[in-house]
Structures are given as C-alpha cells and as structure tokens.
C-alpha cells in the first residue's frame, strides 16, 4: 500500500513539473528544427510539389493530361513480371541491349507519346539512370521520370479504389 501511495504522490508531484519542463525541450526542438529546415541542404520541404526533382513528373499531372504515355519499367525483371503499370515495357541497364528494341518499336509506332520511366520509389535511382541513357541514345528530350515511381502508382490505385492490378 505504502508503495502505491508513494508512487501516486510522486507522479502527482513530478508529472506536471516534468511536463512544464518538457516545453523547454520542445522549444529547443522547434528552434533547431526550424533552423535546419531553413539552412540544411537536404531539408525536406513542407510542400510535396517542391520535392519533385528536375526531369520528374507527378502521376496526378500525367493522369490529368490526355497525351499518350509510353511507360518504361526500370525495376527488376521479376517485379515487372509480377505487376506493372498497364502497357509498361521493361528496360533496365543490365539488360539494355535485349530490352531496348521493344521500347524503340513501341515508340516508333506512336512517336507522339511521352516516355515516362519509373522505378520502385523516391529512393531508387534506376529510373533517372534509364531516362538519362534514353535521352542520350535516342536524342529525345521528352523522357520524364515518374515522381515516387511504383509507390505513386500503388497510391493512385488505392485512392481511386481500384485495388492492386
């Protein structure tokens, strides 16, 4: 009994004081975080639109437009076989020579289409590498990278209530 009374009493005594002092921690956090957000070169912007890198395009923009899109899947072959954006063709740097002809053929049959490359998520770099190589080899400036890649597609499917393909 003695223990529980003492525990309760000490919680009553110290919790409010500790909470009040936690505000000092919060204040320090706010100031340093705000400074980092302002000065840090790798700071995360609070608006996602500004996070879209050069050469990247958001899925919502593509879906809003009416132009033809030729999807290029820069993920692994296994991932492509399992599931992909409808009509997407696989193209990775490892199997470039084997996979490029199919991409070229599809593009020549619909030259007005925009090439959009995607990989797994924002963290992967293969979509940028594939897009870079396509631009260099095809002399085609209209190669875009899907911002957030496959994750953006899954998110879009979820939001539009279509489930996984």
């Amino acid at each position, binding site marked *: 009994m003695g223990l529980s009374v003492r525990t309760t009493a000490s919680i009553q005594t110290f919790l409010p004081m500790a909470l009040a002092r936690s505000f000092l*921690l919060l204040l320090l956090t706010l100031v340093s975080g705000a400074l980092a957000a302002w000065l840090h070169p*790798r700071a995360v912007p609070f608006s996602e639109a500004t996070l879209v890198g050069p050469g990247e395009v958001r899925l919502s923009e593509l879906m809003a437009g009416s132009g033809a899109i030729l999807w290029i899947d820069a993920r692994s072959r296994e991932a492509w076989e399992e599931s992909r954006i409808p009509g997407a063709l696989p193209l990775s740097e490892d199997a470039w020579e084997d996979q490029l002809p199919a991409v070229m053929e599809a593009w020549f049959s619909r030259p007005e289409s925009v090439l959009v490359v995607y990989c797994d998520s924002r963290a992967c770099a293969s979509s940028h590498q594939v897009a870079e190589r396509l631009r260099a080899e095809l002399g085609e400036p209209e190669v875009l990278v899907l911002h957030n890649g496959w994750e953006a597609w899954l998110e879009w499917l979820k939001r539009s209530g279509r489930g996984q393909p």
Partner: protein
Amino acid sequence: MSFVRRGGRDSGVAPSALSGDHSNGYSGREARAGGWRLRRIALWMLKLVAMAVFLYAALPKIADPRAFLADVEAYRVLPAFWMSAAVVTFLPWFELWLALGLWVRGLSRASAWSGLLLMLAFTGLLLSAWFRGLDIACGCFGQSEATGKYGWWLIRDLLLIANFGLILLLERKPGTSRKS
C-alpha cells in the same frame, strides 16, 4: 523506512551492521550512503545507455532528413505530406535534445518522461504497422535496415521503455515522495 532497508541491502554492508539501531547509528548512515552511491552509478549507466541510443538514432536523421522521409512515409499513418515533413524535420532534434537533457539538472526528469512517452508512441506505431502487415524498415536509426524484423524491434523498444522507467524511478528523491 524502505529506503534505509534498501540502502542497507544494496550496499553489501555486513548484516551485523544493519541488525543494530541503524536509524541514527554510524553504520546505518554508512549503509545508506553506500546504497545512494550504487543508485547514482545505476542511474548514470541507464542515462548513458539512453543517451547513446538516442544520439545514434538522431544524428543520421539530422544529417540526412530526406533519407528518413521514406521511412516515415512507409508507415502510412500520416495522411498529409506536410505532416511527414514535420516529423522528419523536428523529431530527430527532439531525440537529440532529450538525450542531452538527461544530463542537465532540472531537465533530466522531463527528458526521461519525454523519452518514455516517445518510446511508447514508437511501440504503438510499430505494433500498428505489424498488424497491418507492412513490410517496412523500422526507420529507428535513420539508415536503411532490414525490413519486417518486428519481433526484434519490439524487444528493443521495450528495453528502452524499461530503461526510461528505471531512470524515473531512481530519480525520485526519498524526502519528496512522502509529501503531498
């Protein structure tokens, strides 16, 4: 007077020293002092562990907030992007300040409470991700870790919760605990 008794036991003083009238005798005071020393050492070690873990967690995230963003978003808890951005921007600094605050007189208890509540929140998030079957990285230490090792992460969280709980228990002063 459980504190005297506990102090006597922890100090390792011979039982004969405790069997007498130790409430005002020299040996009792010595035993109590020994207990307090042990308690201080334990407290110091617990704080050191908590600080080391929290600094190890905070510094990589402070160095590269964008790498941490993917981990936060993978939990799929925060509905808006700006919320993830706020977590990525401020959470590592909070971890840093509370790790350092453990050593500041007047701030240590607040830091320990903050650490405890933060760990409880992290554990709740981890459990929710586990129940939803997400195959994600913990994001605990801001670097790419293996995904889906929920059992191990949970044990780690519970150990840290126990660590902060013990800090709070040991930080109580005997005199104040009887008042109010």
